[in-house]
């Protein structure tokens, strides 16, 4: 029997790796992939707690997170395409119009 803490620590590590990618990478697409990693880490936490409590409510939450992640990916990638069309670049440092 694997302790649930191991799963939760793995989820925390994945979340932190995703956060590192969001903070450090410059390519908007890789930043999106890092956000997906963070969403997956949240899902893993939901499923781990479901197993800990013996209650499959966490599975339903993970299901909804997956659906919302699909919507987010569709909209986000459409925005990346629109930005690439108008700026010719997907590097976040080239998008500084709103920077003060």
């Amino acid at each position, binding site marked *: *029997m694997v302790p649930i803490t191991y799963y939760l620590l793995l989820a*925390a590590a994945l979340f932190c790796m995703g956060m*590192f*990618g969001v903070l450090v990478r410059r390519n908007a697409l890789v930043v999106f992939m890092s956000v*997906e990693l963070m969403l997956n880490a949240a899902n893993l936490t939901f499923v781990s707690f479901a*197993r800990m409590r013996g209650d*499959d409510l966490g599975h339903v939450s993970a299901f909804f997170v997956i659906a919302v992640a699909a919507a987010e990916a569709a909209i986000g990638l*459409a925005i990346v395409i629109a930005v690439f069309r108008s700026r010719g670049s997907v590097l976040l440092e080239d998008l500084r119009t709103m920077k003060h």
Partner: protein
Amino acid sequence: MNIELILFGAFALLTLLSAGTVIFARSPINSAMALVSTFFFMAGIYVLLWAHTVAVMQVLVYAGAIMVLFLFVIMLLNLGESPTRGKPTVARVAGGAATVGLFAVLAIILLKLPAEPATLSAEAQASFGTIATMGQVIFTKWLFPFEAVSLLLLVAMVGAVVVAKSRI
């Protein structure tokens, strides 16, 4: 050493390795392929947690649909390797430090939680996390959120077409 622990260790190690590749790969294509393998190994971990339905949806929706979308966009924009490696600016170093700090805080909190998984009766174990049980819960108790999510997906689909199309 039991087989469950060995499988967990293997899947966890491979997940973390793939996630590291996603973050550090130079070309977005390599990142995307590493993300696919991350999703597959995480599906294995879901199975170890008896979440069979979530594991199937992980492979179908994440590794299937979402990653195809990512690869499609990378190929459409014809993105190559990033020309230069980014310099370690103050913001980046601070970001790395914040990440390590967050993990430390999370680890301290998580280690205080009870570690034992629930012991279920044979009957409850047989139905835990199966498609039948989840379908029953989603279509009775969580019917309204389910419908709201389907509406959200429809709106996202229309929005994606409107945003990405150059001329409507």
